């Protein structure tokens, strides 16, 4: 058997912090075979990224490789080098880094310097390692940009990262990593920040390039769906140690280690049974939830929240110097209806307008036209016309759960202050009553009272998100707007939070508008799903019929692009390669919508509506 490109042996990395030493990677041993993809899987904090940084010796100053070896067998030269023995700033290490071992990162926006052109940053990578002049480097850069799928490589040379979409930025990162033709590519969560369709294209690109160049890939991810689709071998890490390693077949067909089994059970899948519950790795018990009663309130006759023909345009100034204004329609005639006690899932890729819709429902921004109707049992009222007392009551009834649990809690307030703030704003209760209420809220979300005096930074991501939920519940709302509430969380924690939301709904009779880009998550939690694209609702259906019979080409593409953690249901890369799913004018008839048009929603089976283009609209008339 051929020698592996990289043999990691007993790798140990220690962090020295104020609180003492901390072992982030503890005796990790694995091989990366030539031309293969090894996936390193684990939750955040499992040490997978630190392992990758150790291989390139770009660890933070506080971290040190204390033991073990990293034997690198460069196929272009004879013999092997022990990377762990090289000083981090030696010439040998500089030439390995970026030259023979390249790396791409999770956040393609922050990984590229906004002040330098793509061309500058990519050609720089080549010029560090090869003795070429700028003209040759530019030529090579254009070649590689062309290869990774840039439509106009020549123009791209002079483009800045912020002018590109997330997908193109990640392609630029890949171009930067591959221009030196490295033997090993380390991809640290390369698609986590991308939309599903873009994710599928990037994974496909990495696979293709791997076949072309014969490089090995170390793929770091927490997404078992991605692993099932691209990895040859899988290494599962937990708390700095390897829990299980083996070929993809072995791992997915016959997971041995309880941790891995638990991880598999925590991921929402499409094939789940109707009332099947996710099993988080660490179940959180909520003491008071089982006994909690929904407040006695008049139930509305119709839906509790209804959105009618909501439209919103934004005016963009195209530049500082030109002052020309451009109008962009973010939301086009959106109709939604949320029945009381149910969950409406709103799915779409970034920039499709789903957050704008939720902000208009909150009355954070005014619509250009259309109505948001809220019915608390006394008949529907237009939210954007509410004033005074009625508006305050509405604000109390509709609360928001944010995506980022780190930035949505004020770091200078204790948990007690955070949770009582809504009560203080609305002047509810005496301070003793507030204290009781907050204790009860904490119990409901499964945190203990000791949390009250602590500050948000001392909690983990999942705990913070539960604090966010507790805060939203403080005013006994009837509707919760959840904007990507789990997309910043690990799978195991995600399962916890999703289950909590489900339990709360059952116990308190809440209605959710659940906004997400993750179809599997929406499938798990929602009753009805609306798919949004470029400001249009393109398809809306009860979840069973949406997944059984997706009609709209965009929905189909979206469904096809979700990697399922099931090796018997691989992604169909060839189908996804065509692109253009999110261009309304590129959809096939009868779905095609010309710019400036709205099309019409057509009901194809009870509750299942699809947006059709102009032709169909005329036929119907």
């Amino acid at each position: 058997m051929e020698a592996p490109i990289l043999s990691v042996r007993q790798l140990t990395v220690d962090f020295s912090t104020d609180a003492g030493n901390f072992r982030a990677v503890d005796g990790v041993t694995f091989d990366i075979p030539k031309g293969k993809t090894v996936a390193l899987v684990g939750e955040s904090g499992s040490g997978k990224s630190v392992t990758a940084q150790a291989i390139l010796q770009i660890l933070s100053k506080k971290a040190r490789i204390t033991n073990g070896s990293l034997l690198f067998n460069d196929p272009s030269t004879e013999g092997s080098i022990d990377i762990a023995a090289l000083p981090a700033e030696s010439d040998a290490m500089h030439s390995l880094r970026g030259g023979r071992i390249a790396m791409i990162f999770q956040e393609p926006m922050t990984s590229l310097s906004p002040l330098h052109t793509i061309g500058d940053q990519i050609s720089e990578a080549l010029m560090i390692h090869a003795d070429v002049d700028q003209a040759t480097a530019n030529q090579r850069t254009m070649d590689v940009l062309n290869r990774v799928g840039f439509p106009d490589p020549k123009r791209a040379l002079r483009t800045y990262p912020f002018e590109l979409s997330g997908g193109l930025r990640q392609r630029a990162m890949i171009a930067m990593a591959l221009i030196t033709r490295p033997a090993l590519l380390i991809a640290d969560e390369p698609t986590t920040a991308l939309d599903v369709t873009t994710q599928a294209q990037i994974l496909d690109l990495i696979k293709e390039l791997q076949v072309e160049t014969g490089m090995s890939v170390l793929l770091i991810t927490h997404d078992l769906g991605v692993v099932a689709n691209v990895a040859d071998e899988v290494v599962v890490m937990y708390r700095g140690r390897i829990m299980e390693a083996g070929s993809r077949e072995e791992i997915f067909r016959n997971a041995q280690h309880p941790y891995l089994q638990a991880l598999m059970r925590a991921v929402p899948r499409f094939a789940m049974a109707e009332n099947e519950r996710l099993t988080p790795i660490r179940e959180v018990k909520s003491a008071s939830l089982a006994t909690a009663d929904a407040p006695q309130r008049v139930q509305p006759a119709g839906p509790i929240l209804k959105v009618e023909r909501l439209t919103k345009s934004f005016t963009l100034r195209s530049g500082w110097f030109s002052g020309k204004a451009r109008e962009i329609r973010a939301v086009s005639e959106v109709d939604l209806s949320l029945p009381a006690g149910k969950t409406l899932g709103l799915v779409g890729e970034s920039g499709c307008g789903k957050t704008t819709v939720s902000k208009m429902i909150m009355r954070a921004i005014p619509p250009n036209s259309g109505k948001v109707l809220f019915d608390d049992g006394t008949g529907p009222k237009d939210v954007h016309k509410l004033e005074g007392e009625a508006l305050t009551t509405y604000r109390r009834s509709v609360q928001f759960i944010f995506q980022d649990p780190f930035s949505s809690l004020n770091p200078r307030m204790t948990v007690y202050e955070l949770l009582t703030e809504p009560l203080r704003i609305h002047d509810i209760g005496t301070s003793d009553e507030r204290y009781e209420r907050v204790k009860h809220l904490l119990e409901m979300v499964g945190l203990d009272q000791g949390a009250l005096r602590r500050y948000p930074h001392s909690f983990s991501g999942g705990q913070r998100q539960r604090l966010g939920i507790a805060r939203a519940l403080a005013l006994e709302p009837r509707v919760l707007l959840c904007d990507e509430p789990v997309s910043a969380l690990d799978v195991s924690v995600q399962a916890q939070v999703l289950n909590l939301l489900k339990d709360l709904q059952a116990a308190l009779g809440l209605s959710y508008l659940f906004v997400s880009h993750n179809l599997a998550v929406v499938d798990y939690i929602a009753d009805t799903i609306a798919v949004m694209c470029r400001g249009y609702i393109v398809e809306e259906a009860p979840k069973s019929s949406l997944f059984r019979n997706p009609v709209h080409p965009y929905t189909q593409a979206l469904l096809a692009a979700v990697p399922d953690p099931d090796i018997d249901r691989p992604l169909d890369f060839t189908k996804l390669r065509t692109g253009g799913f999110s261009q309304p004018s590129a959809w096939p008839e009868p779905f095609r919508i010309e710019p400036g048009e709205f099309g019409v929603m057509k009901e194809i089976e009870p509750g299942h509506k699809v947006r059709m283009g102009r032709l169909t609209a005329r036929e119907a008339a």
Partner: protein
Amino acid sequence: MIRFLLRRTVTMAVTLLIISALVFFIIKLPPGDFLTNQIAELRAQGESASIAKAEFLIRQYGLDKPAWQQYLVWLGVMPGPNGFSGLLQGDWGWSFEYDKPVVDVVGDALWLTLLVNFAVVIFIHLIAIPIAIYSATRQYSVGDYIATFIGYIGLATPSFLLALILLYYMNRWFGISIGGLYDPQYAGESWTWAKVQSLLSHLVVPTVVIGLGGTAAMIRRMRANLLDELGKQYYVTAKAKGLGPTKALLKYPFRMSLNPFIADIGNLLPQLVSGSVLVSLVLSLPTVGPILLSALKSQDQFLAGFILMFVAVLTVAGMLVSDLLLAWLDPRIRMGGAR
């Protein structure tokens, strides 16, 4: 670009107009003016000849007219006794205190002020940037602590006190006088090479004294900015490409951390002019600071008004320069930046 410049020029003109009105009316706020005060004083002494001259000047400069008319005449948009002759026509008025045209009073002082302040700005950047880089890249090292300590001392030392101390010890130890910007024998002389040499040697101490506080502040801010940028992902990317530590640092995080300082250029200039008044007094520097102070005290309105307008023009022009520089250096601003 041209539209932008036009728009900016118009805003600048409006801003300056408002500032000129504010400046003029605030100077006129206390009752009386230089000449009426002087006349009252002369009356007490019974000097009728000088009174006649003062009254002539009052009529000459229209000080007997209402304040708004005086303002418009000063600005040059309303005909005074000599027709249209104000700031817009380049006539900066008459200094009653010095009994000379304003242009003769401030002439040398203006460009010496610019020279001193330019030297100070250069000094601040030359000293602060390397120390800040050292301190940020070696956070919590001994060197960082020493730099931080010296920085705090620099921030906390009043510059006029430092000026006095230096004045005393330089004289005592080296027997040299560091007051003024050149040796006394060159005062009023034309600019010869010897005078320039004298100027340069005299420039050192004022530069250090005036610049110390700014240097310390800049070290602290630059260090903080750089520390923020050093934690950013693009710096890791640069290192992962194989760039050496120095080059990676200077090309990426350092350049990013410069933005706030470029944005500050507009503020820096007037601050240095008004901030160095005390030091200029102590070191008897022939800059506009002390002249402004005495002009304000004696209500020498045209002199004070002109100096304040000069500072305002510096500010507005500085803002424009920093905006243009920012746009040139940062594509996100140039292109109207999405995020």
